[in-house]
């Protein structure tokens, strides 16, 4: 088994954006990067939207192509197994949101070994706005996927309206989640647009490029 990072969390927390960005980052130093899409609950915003981009960076995307990328049928591609079998592969797994989405990860629970399991959190999402709410979702995910989460990625944002202050002030929330759970805070994210403003003010900052641009964006 190679190196595996698993990205899970509340739906709409930004897992897919982070998984794509993380894969691109890993591809800078690793030859064999795999992005495995285990999301069987999100019908619209998928890793497949970034298929071309991933391909140009030599990242292997394993995603369900059953009836296109969005058929209303939950299915996990059998090729996901190869991420476990290939000792040289560096894999990012993008898991579906909430306990319902994390259920699909449970199928691999006994194979995960020392995979790094990270939960994405966003204090601007109503159900993870408080430490309590965040930990409730965390416990539900852990129970559904039969895994223990190892740490958090703070992805607090308000979409296009996010300000530098939103990111900076969210650190307190993320630290409280970390303290209450006893689990480490692995990194904080910031979108491209705000990187310079936030850089230096927040530790372990990860720069996110927002790739999914849809026609209805205004």
């Amino acid at each position, binding site marked *: 088994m190679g190196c595996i990072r698993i990205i899970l969390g509340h*739906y709409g927390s930004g897992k897919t954006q982070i998984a794509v960005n993380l894969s691109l980052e890993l591809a800078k130093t690793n030859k064999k990067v795999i992005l495995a899409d285990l999301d069987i609950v999100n019908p619209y915003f998928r890793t497949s939207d970034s298929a071309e981009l991933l391909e140009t960076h030599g990242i292997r995307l394993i995603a369900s192509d059953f009836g296109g990328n969005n058929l209303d049928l939950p299915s996990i591609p059998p090729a996901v197994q190869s991420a476990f079998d290939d000792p040289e592969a560096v894999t990012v797994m993008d898991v579906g949101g909430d306990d319902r989405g994390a259920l699909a990860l449970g199928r691999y629970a006994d194979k995960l070994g020392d995979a790094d399991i990270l939960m994405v959190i966003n204090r*601007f999402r109503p159900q993870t706005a408080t430490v309590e709410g965040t930990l409730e979702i965390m416990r539900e995910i852990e129970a559904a996927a039969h895994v223990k989460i190892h740490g958090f990625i703070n992805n607090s944002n*308000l*979409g296009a309206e996010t300000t530098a202050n939103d990111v900076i002030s969210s650190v307190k929330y993320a630290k409280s989640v970390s303290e209450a759970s006893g689990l480490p805070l692995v990194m904080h994210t910031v979108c491209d647009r705000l990187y310079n403003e936030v850089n230096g003010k927040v530790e372990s900052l990860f720069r996110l490029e927002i790739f999914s641009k849809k*026609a209805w964006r205004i």
Partner: protein
Amino acid sequence: MEKSLMKGNEAIAEAAILAGCRHFFGYPITPQNELAAYMSRRMPQVEGTFLQAESEIAAINMVIGAAAAGKRAMTSSSSPGVALKSEGLSYLAGCDLPAVIVNVQRGGPGLGTIQPSQADYFMAVKGGGHGDFYKVVLAPSNIQEMVDCTYTAFDIADRYRVTVMILADGILGQMMEPVSLTKPEQKPLPAKDWAVTGKAGRNRNIVNSLYLSPEILEQQNIIRFKKYDEIKKNETRAELYKTDDAEICVVAYGAAARISKNAVDAAREKGIRAGLIRPITLWPFPNKEIFDLADKVKAFTVVEMSMGQMIQDVELAVKFKKPVNLCSRTGGMVPAPEQILESIERSI
């Protein structure tokens, strides 16, 4: 109130709870599932009732029950599921009951696709049940408006004792935007003295849609249509965007209007004076607002994520004064701003 980042489906659900809805009955279907899922978590927290019914038909009939008891009740679904609710929608109208129903449209006909669509315009505005009746149909175009429309929907429903449909689509249901959930000040609403709440201390109330005497049923329908005239007068809503000097007017609602705004801006950059009228109520339709524009513009371009349904109402409103062209994508496909721009250019 601090803003939250919400999906459209969640935003409607939370706004409904803030509007005092404590009875939600649903049945799963993509792309509206987050709405019911959100309700299933939140309703117990506010001592409300969430119930996943055994079918869409059961869910709408539960809404009838809760509404008859004077409660703010809601159901939601997506296209094929809403079609199943048609019978209940007609009974709601026949009983003059206030209720809110959400349709997060997907591509059809049949089981179709889970991708976004606007092909239920006819079902929402013209039909969606048998008999002489209308529903008020609200068409939000962004997530903040999903919240605001939900507050409005419950108020209109209670004020006129009608069913209000929020007609969204998969894009609006799934996309996320920051929203403020601050509720506008509540205007006083009529007391629900018709509700069946137990007759202790008063004469019994009857909620019923069966009138075997045609003379009485005719009168009931005429009275109901007087109410519809009031709604047309008071509740018609449309947004005008850059129409003051427009030579071409785009007509679009919901998600198609978002994309059309980008196309209108792009046309303006090219020196074409384009504008947009966006019906916010699809029933009642903003006939007068469109008719008034017909004197000013050279042509209309209707943008729809269907084979062209609202265009019929635009043509009726324009009364053949100016050409009305269609820019359409269907089956879950979404028009690109470039396609709309091309259509605007062709209309000149």
